[in-house]
């Protein structure tokens, strides 16, 4: 439809500004311009030419660079808001988010939460922004790369005069004294790695055309990257779980369908030692009061044999021993276990002695397993201790009653009933850390604190990410594209003999300075004048 046939014989798509083949100006409006717009080789950028249906309108909207830049800028500005206060994944996880923001940051924190800024980067509108950038990438690239490719493939050696004289680098020179000069130029071009096409005495020297595709390659990379990001939402592609495991514990690894178990044999934290690790660190270590050198979990990996269901004692077969350190995850079955966090010296066992307060005499030791205390400790001879109540993570609740916050023994408290031969009905004592309360009046006996045993807990993150290779691929292609487009310039030099003169024109997509220097190098010493920069001439006159 409405294709334009140029006088050179080539048929151009509708809307072409410069003939794809010879460069003659096809659009009336362009004829008066001093220089032609070479950004897309004067090709018909499809979206500019068709604007009829709603589909076209949407297409053109996303094809526009201006819209693209706006999307980038809006994304940039909104990203800033998420850095004002910590995002929800960086605040302590054991209290509700709203509560945290309000208590830490007051009304501002509350507002921040209500606006959804605490989880800004997962909000629907932020995702929509990124998605729009993705859409824009697809459409603007398609819209430009296809016509550009056509134009660059179909260009001919001998360009129309109108084209040549409207190039930024342009000059007309007298024919040189001898043909040898042309041979010199030819050789100089060759030595500067130009590809030379000759036709009827005219020359087109071109190099680094591949650099023009750079932007489109990097756009493809970005699109693949975004696709990878999108795939994370597909179930099964991405797993993110935590596994807290105490020394001595064996636990099922989440997301392995109950197939794999891990035992924490030992958890080690090592600090830098001034003597061992280097005197050179002394000042820094003193200032910081101790710097962690390494922390790792020595674990054993087991595979479940047999068909037990969760809750039953599984039959485990050892697979291997491993050490999990930061930067060195353990890989199991497509999952990776990372050493992320730890808790040192979690209370494990507490020992008490049943003691007569006045005489100080002790009647037996009670060692309580803080994860599951016994109900009754019989000390013989009529002495016994019963655990009436147990609160591993003690607090006074809203009603003022003793209660527990969680099942983790952060702050154990007990209600003991102590029975002895002279107090067979029992005495009640409430015992917490550094606190003993006798709710029913003064007791004769007390539970004296004897000692505590601790264990370290290792915090592992269980991660599966099948989208990583896609993201990696996208990133790689992006880097290739960006390097391809940025570090080389597409340069062309046209040399034509017209009516006894030599017409020279030059074009590059960027770095005119470099092209000009190169032209000087090519034409210096030959009988042909170096072409001038028409923009510079303009600026000088004006």
């Amino acid at each position, binding site marked *: 439809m409405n294709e334009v046939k140029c006088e050179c014989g080539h048929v151009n798509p509708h809307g072409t500004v410069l003939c794809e083949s010879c460069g003659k100006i096809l659009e009336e409006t362009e004829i008066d311009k001093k220089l032609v717009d070479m950004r897309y080789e004067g090709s018909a950028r499809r979206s500019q030419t068709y604007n009829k249906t709603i589909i076209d309108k949407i297409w053109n909207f996303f094809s526009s660079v201006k819209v693209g830049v706006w999307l980038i*800028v809006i994304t940039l500005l909104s990203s800033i808001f998420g*850095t004002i206060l910590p995002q929800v994944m960086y605040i302590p996880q054991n209290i509700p988010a709203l509560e945290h923001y309000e208590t830490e940051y007051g009304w501002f924190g509350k507002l921040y939460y209500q606006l959804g800024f605490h989880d800004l980067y997962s909000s629907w509108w932020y995702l929509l922004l990124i998605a729009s950038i993705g859409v824009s990438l697809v459409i603007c690239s398609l819209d430009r790369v296809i016509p550009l490719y056509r134009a660059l493939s179909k260009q001919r050696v001998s360009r129309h005069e109108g084209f040549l004289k409207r190039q930024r680098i342009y000059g007309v020179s007298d024919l040189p004294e001898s043909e040898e000069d042309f041979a010199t130029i030819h050789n100089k071009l060759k030595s500067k790695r130009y590809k030379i096409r000759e036709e009827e005495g005219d020359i087109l020297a071109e190099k680094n055309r591949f650099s023009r595709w750079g932007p489109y390659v990097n756009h493809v990379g970005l699109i693949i990257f975004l696709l990878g990001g999108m795939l994370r939402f597909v179930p099964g592609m991405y797993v993110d779980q935590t596994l807290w495991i105490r020394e001595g514990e064996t636990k099922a690894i989440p997301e392995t369908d109950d197939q794999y178990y891990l035992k924490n044999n030992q958890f080690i934290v090592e600090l830098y030692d001034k003597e061992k690790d280097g005197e050179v660190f002394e000042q820094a270590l003193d200032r910081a009061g101790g710097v962690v050198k390494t922390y790792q979990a020595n674990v054993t990996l087991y595979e479940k044999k047999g068909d037990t269901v969760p809750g039953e004692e599984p039959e485990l077969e050892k697979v291997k021993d491993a050490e999990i350190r930061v930067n060195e995850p353990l890989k199991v079955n497509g999952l990776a276990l990372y050493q992320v966090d730890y808790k040192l010296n979690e209370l494990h066992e507490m020992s008490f002695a049943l003691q007569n307060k006045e005489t100080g005499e002790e009647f037996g030791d009670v060692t309580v397993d803080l994860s599951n205390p016994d109900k009754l400790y019989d000390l013989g001879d009529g002495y016994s201790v019963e655990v009436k109540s147990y609160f591993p993570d003690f607090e006074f609740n809203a009603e003022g009653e003793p209660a527990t916050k969680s099942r983790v023994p952060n702050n154990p408290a007990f209600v003991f009933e102590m029975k002895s031969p002279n107090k067979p009905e029992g005495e009640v004592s409430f015992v917490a850390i550094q606190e003993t309360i006798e709710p029913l009046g003064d007791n004769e006996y007390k539970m004296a604190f004897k000692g505590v045993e601790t264990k370290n807990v290792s915090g592992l993150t269980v991660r599966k990410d099948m989208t990583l290779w896609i993201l990696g691929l996208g990133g790689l292609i992006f880097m290739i594209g960006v390097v391809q487009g940025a570090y080389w310039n597409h340069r062309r030099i046209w040399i034509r003999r017209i009516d006894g003169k030599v017409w020279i024109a030059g074009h590059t997509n960027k770095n005119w300075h470099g092209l000009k220097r190169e032209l000087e190098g090519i034409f210096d010493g030959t009988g042909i004048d170096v072409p001038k920069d028409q923009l510079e001439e303009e600026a000088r006159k004006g």
Partner: protein
Amino acid sequence: MVELSGNLLYVAFICYLVATTFFGGSIKAKKDGKKIEGPNKWATIAIIITVVGFVAQLGYFITRWIAAGHAPVSNLFEFTTFFGMCLVGAFILIYYIYKTPWLGVFTLPVAILIIAYASMFPRDISPLIPALQSDWLHIHVTTAALGQAILSISFAAGIIYLVKAVDQTTSSKRTFWLEMIMYSIVSVISFIIITTGFAAVNYSAEFNYIDKKGAAAVYEYQIPALIGPHEGELVTEGKFEPFIETPAIIDSKKLNTVIWSLLSGLILYWVLRLLLRKRIAASLHPLVKNINLDLVDEISYRSVLIGFPVFTLGALVFAMIWAQIAWTRFWGWDPKEVWALITWLFYAAFLHLRLSKGWHGEKSAWLAIIGFFIIMFNLIVVNLVIAGLHSYAGS
């Protein structure tokens, strides 16, 4: 080895100072209105001294690496000096492409300031915490710093462009904002002077105060407290009493330093204005009178074009790879990562805007300034003010 390292850094610092004056001299040497084209004797000496300084700083880097057992880019001081070194390196590269001595007059001082600023922070060589014990430390941090340094050349070029292009005969929004940039630079200088000055007299004042968790804590101030901590009680006798107290949630010591810098910067700025009798940008004008604006614009653009891929590679790609290995997630939206993204988006927008001729020249120069501000925000505010996985040990 540590001493040698420190000395080499001083040598580099002095070299850059000297080179700046020589570069300045090379411009003055052409006062007769001839177009600045290519180097002259002054410029040649200047670039040689610059290269000597650069080699010295490389020496500091290598010796410190040997002493510490790991690449010296693991705390704020080390990173910032490395950044300064990359800036000088990037300048040397651009100089050899474009042969532009005037670029040295503006770039080297920026590098000097950055190194001086870095020196205000703890310089002890510290061992690496587990998360940093990886080859990726070297790869990610160095490439990111290099990328940022190359991008920063566009800042120097941008300033030059504006100093020449902005009409100083009248007051306008442009002159105001250009002066704001000058004031910011002056504030950095005064920060360095203040901090060094009080450190030289070993000023120290201790405060007992209540921190945001309600616990008792102690603050040691290295400069007099204009702003005091929450319910602070001055322990050291005879020292300055603060005017105001901050709520517990604000780090009063850092805020105090910021206020000192801004106030003293203001004073220093006005002193300069009084001495120079005109705006600072206006007084720099003669230096740039004969520079080709197109060339400046070209250099500004080129440095972004060269730096952008390096920055992407270092600050995003390598960062993501390392984050995945060390923190199990390649992107966590922590403030530093977000600001790296913001920087990246900004320069991407810059490159796209350059497609339109209307954005060449002065508009690009302003954009280059904003871009540098974003980089500095990431370096200073995100590291020191906004806490996170990425914070370095601060002052």
